[in-house]
């Protein structure tokens, strides 16, 4: 029954998503990769920064995914908010995967394979996924009325900037070939997990009973 509803939701959701914001972020991300790739030669460190900034641009755009001026009216629908939001994410995910692949391919095609070979693309992809997940999760947490995109965008920007600040041994943003690379990417995977949990919690309907109420409800005889 839920699957049936989800399929039925696909087309209207496709129309409701603010594609311009999402596309603006993705487009800027591609430009950020393509322009340096066709102009300059960088060290692996430089390309890692370029890819990270492209991921931040994509995440900033994707933060607006859940924005919906009609949120106050759809809240009364029997379809749970989590399902409605999940449909939006499901629509975006294949596109974002294609976008990230396109960014990596553009880098390889324009800068040459020799420039890209030393790059730990798997780790950078984990960071990109973490940024996207964090952006959408913050937007979901803030967007009780369908306007969390701003908070999500600013939040992921601030998070990305602050992640660069801690000095070693607490650094989260490392240069490729750093010995601590694998350990730090465990932290980034934790960010993804936390974002997923936050997304699920934020998807609870406002009318639903609070968890605390369910757990600590007074017995009816009192």
């Amino acid at each position, binding site marked *: 029954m839920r699957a049936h509803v989800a399929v039925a939701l696909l087309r209207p959701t496709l129309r409701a998503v603010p594609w311009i914001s999402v596309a603006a972020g993705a487009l800027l991300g591609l430009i950020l990769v393509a322009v340096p790739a066709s102009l300059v030669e960088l060290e692996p460190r430089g390309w890692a920064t370029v890819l990270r*900034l492209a991921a931040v641009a994509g995440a900033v755009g994707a933060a607006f995914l859940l924005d919906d001026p009609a949120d106050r009216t759809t809240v009364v629908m029997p379809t749970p908010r989590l399902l409605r939001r999940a449909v939006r994410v499901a629509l975006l995910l294949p596109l974002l995967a294609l976008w990230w692949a396109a960014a990596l391919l553009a880098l390889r095609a324009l800068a040459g394979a020799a420039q890209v070979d030393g790059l730990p693309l798997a780790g950078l992809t984990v960071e990109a996924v973490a940024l996207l997940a964090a952006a959408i999760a913050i937007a979901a947490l803030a967007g009780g009325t369908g306007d969390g995109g*701003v908070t999500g965008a600013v939040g992921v920007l601030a998070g990305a900037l602050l992640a660069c600040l801690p*000095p070693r041994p607490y650094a989260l943003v490392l240069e490729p070939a750093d010995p601590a690379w694998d350990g730090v990417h465990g932290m980034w995977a934790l960010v993804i997990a936390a974002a997923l949990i936050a997304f699920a919690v934020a998807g609870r309907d406002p009318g639903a009973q609070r968890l605390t109420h369910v757990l600590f409800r007074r017995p009816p005889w009192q």
Partner: protein
Amino acid sequence: MSTTTERLPPGVAGESTANRIAVAWAVLALARVEVVRLLRHPAVLLALAAMAALWVTLRLGGATWTRFPVLHEQDRATQDLALLPGLAALVAGNLAVLRSRRDGTEELYGVLLLPRWARTGAHLLALLPLALLVGAAAAVHLAALAAAPGAVGQVNPWEVATGPALVLLLGAVGVLIGRVVPSAVAASLAVVLLLLAFDVMTSPVFGLPGRPVEWLTLVVGERLGQEGLTPDLLARPAIWHVAYLTGLALVVACGTLLRDRAPRIPLLAALVAAALGTVTAGALQLRPVSEEVRAARVAATERPSTRQTCETAGTVTYCTFAGYGAWIREWRPVVEAVRRLLPRGPAERPLVVRQRMVATNPAPEDGNSLAVPPPPLAAWRADDRAAGTPGAVTAGTAWGSGRDAFGLAGLVAHRATGATDADDVLCGGRAIVLLWLAARATPETATGFVEAMRASGGDVFFETAPYGPSVHVTERDVAVVQALLRLPTERVGDEIRADWDALTAAKVPTAKVAARFGLSAPPQPPKAERTVGTEGC
């Protein structure tokens, strides 16, 4: 008719003085509200907290630059951090401008007498207190650094003022974006673009660092080959850079107001004046370094003694550039610790420690040259002879790390063992005694020795001058020194003092020194595997 015009909003018609004053009051009242909202915006609070946290934690952690700060380098370091509140101002200013659109009240404002440009003006004015706050934070930070006992140099107030100017410029850009693009995504993406720009412009690949054109960007960092200059030789056009950034901020602000139909004539005049000022300041900061400063740099590099004051403590004389006197207190324990380990003769020989730097002038046609010329060793020898201090030991214009202490101790020991500047590879007795003295002197030099070893994978290099020739000690000798360091200091020290002449004579084989202390020297690597210059060891 005239009564009707006077009630119309200013900027539309009826430019009476009373109206102008009323609008000005309204703008100020609005600005007051916006100031509070901007200052307590989460992005701004987060940026200010991050800035403060970084300063405080590094201070508490005892980072080298907080214990021995060079104030004329730390003042410009506040600019990089001011980018954080600057970017926060861009985002927060933009969101404040778009607030009415988000809340759907833009149409309601249309019925107010106060015109749209006055609201924009209030948003722009609201940036001023944040800029002042950033400047005040930087001033407090620098005052705290200056209070450290190891602080040297002097703060350039214009370098401190650059941070607030950045905040104004970035905030004004945020307001402009808010008025041009009616979506919050634009400002966030602008921040990403700016971040890439900062990163690209500071990477040498782009060819900007070191060129005068670099001054047209927002923050200009340290140039390669220009580190460790005394304040009088820096010649950074900081004042013109502040004027340039403030001018840009005014141009953006006037442009935004004009777009919102502010009174045409005064604002056009202001825009033209700001643009002219920006172009003038922008051009003035691109001027090449003046001839006097170029000559002073050459003089300070080649004839340091002419610009220094000296202070004698016991048999050691310390000569420093103006403003660096506080470090004599830091050098003395290291120098004296090495000399305490020496036998009586070398320990009582007078010694001069002279501060030296290599202040290179960029070539006139291309300031981007990454090559740093070798230190003028011949000129230094001549300078020492002229000053009556032959054989002075070099101390640099940076201090605080273990490597710095180890370098100074190494040079004092180098001089004591009778090695000359011409020896670029030391081996055998001299090398072992020298490294043991330098590493044993103080706890700082001991950590410096370990760092030096780690930095070059077993061998040890230490510079006899900034960027200058290094003295190279091979891994084999270093291994003997490590073994010696594990023996009791008293015993090794006594035996070195007793056998000083035999141990520090030229070409004493490593194995013989090791055997002298009951150690076994590692085997000599085959000749083909030795590094260049060490074949004779």
